[in-house]
């Protein structure tokens, strides 16, 4: 399953898309915990591209691939941004990827962020610490692509996952009410 959205940078769309990512995970995997991790990752990455884009369009993709015993889940964002932002986010991504203890890194950044006005600078570290995901990124010209991926074990009680979206009696209530 692939969800791909290209849109003008807009926080409200980021919120809607990340809720969709969470709801699709919940529906397909019947796993609220995974759904919340990927909703959070999509939201944090989405807010970053919306906030720092210098282009008129950004993109967010969510992919869920059935690999038999496992699913591979990924969120990929792309945006065009300024050289300063590319340098800043590149440094933060290297720091987050290299961190031997993502929770310790997140704790340190959280403590540094307290009392600061405006942005938190915590999103990427939070995704690594709380999302249990692997980061890959690339910078080509002024375009930044960030992908987070995680393998997810199939829950045995749902060994057959339908290809089409459908509501079953076991579907839990979405936890993304607005």
């Amino acid at each position, binding site marked *: 399953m692939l969800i791909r959205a290209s849109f003008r940078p807009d*926080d409200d769309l980021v*919120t809607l898309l990340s*809720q969709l990512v969470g709801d699709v995970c919940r529906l397909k995997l019947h796993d*609220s*915990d995974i759904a*919340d*991790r990927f*909703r*959070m990752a999509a*939201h*944090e990455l989405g*807010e970053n591209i919306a906030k720092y884009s210098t282009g008129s369009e950004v993109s967010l993709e969510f992919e869920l691939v059935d690999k038999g015993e496992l699913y591979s889940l990924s969120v990929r964002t792309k945006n065009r941004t300024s050289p300063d932002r590319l340098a800043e986010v590149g440094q933060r991504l290297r720091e987050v990827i290299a961190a031997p203890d993502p*929770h310790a890194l*997140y*704790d340190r950044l*959280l*403590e540094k*962020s*307290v*009392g*600061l006005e405006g*942005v*938190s600078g*915590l*999103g990427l570290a*939070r995704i690594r*610490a*709380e999302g249990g995901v692997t980061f890959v990124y690339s910078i080509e010209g002024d375009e930044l692509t960030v992908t987070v991926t995680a393998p997810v074990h199939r829950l045995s009680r749902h060994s057959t996952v339908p290809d089409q979206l459908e509501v079953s009696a076991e579907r839990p209530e979405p*936890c*993304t*009410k*607005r």
Partner: protein
Amino acid sequence: MLNDMRMLTLSAIRADGFALEPFVDSATPAVKFSGNADSHAVVPLELFLRQLHENLVDSRCTQVQVDLLELYFMNSSCVKELASWIHMVKITGAAYKVYLHINPRQPWQWRSLEPLRRLAPAIAVLRVDGQES
């Protein structure tokens, strides 16, 4: 002792799918979060928490209960605002504890709020169904 009249100076906040409500009808000051705390919630949350802190200090409260049971999402900027509040309690030597009541059906809450407890373990307490961390 809590001065309830002081607590009445706090107004509820509703911002695009997010709500913050102070409760003044009990012996213990309490605040309820609900909805989705995304980018629209950041500024109202910061202002609310600053005012809440002033109220709690003025009223010499020893604790505040924070009900998160109906909170469905919190972005990192809102997590930072909660961390800033708890840090402010810590550095000003305020004499109250923050009890964060989390929903066991939403494991993200534990993951996202446990760092706040680590930030100030003497001040921030996580509670799940009566259990405490």
